[in-house]
């Protein structure tokens, strides 16, 4: 069983290591992640939302739909823990 697990891990890791060949170089300013969407946030974030912390600006304004349902997920987790674990007092 353990050898099978180790084998699966090594195969998956080898595939992923092969996949890193196509990644852009680390900390490259011209990589695709830094050139497509985020320059808009950096350039216009402060003047549109007046929040100098760009992470807060993107979290609370541009991507607030994301954050809203994330709050709902946390709420659901709390409710699930209460309903799974709580014993009724008898």
């Amino acid at each position: 069983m353990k050898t099978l697990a180790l084998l699966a891990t090594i195969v998956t890791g080898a595939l992923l290591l092969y996949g890193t060949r196509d990644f852009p170089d680390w900390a490259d300013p011209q990589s695709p992640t830094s050139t497509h969407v985020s320059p808009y946030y950096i350039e216009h974030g402060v003047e549109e939302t007046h929040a100098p912390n760009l992470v807060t600006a993107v979290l609370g304004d541009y991507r607030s739909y994301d954050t809203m349902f994330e709050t709902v997920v946390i709420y659901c987790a709390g409710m699930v823990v209460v309903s799974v674990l709580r014993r009724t007092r008898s």
Partner: protein
Amino acid sequence: MEQVVAVIVAKYNYWLYVILMMIGFYAMIGKRNLVKKLLGMNIFQTAIILLYVSTGVKRGAGIPILDKYEALKHGVDVAGVANPLPHVLMLTAIVVSVSVTGVALAILLRIYRRYGTLEEDEILEKIRQ
């Protein structure tokens, strides 16, 4: 030779993330104890979050907190600020990971209440009886 060194310098981070992920994956499928599986799941999650955060790094850039009046007056140099988008996505992922851990621990306590053990093979033994 120089080419090999350039490749290593550009990619060594990704290789270490893959190694971290392999450690978490092995703990998830190879270990018998359920708490160990959960710790492995947490290591797996942090490895993936680390990969995402590292894509936001730019060489020679500062943190994504600007000077408000300076930015309003003169504008912002895009190359001098780290990419804030992966940070936002991973911020939510970390908080979701702790709620996932909470739900998993609740289920684990429930299993312990029913079977009296946390070892996977003993639980399977008791189910078969």
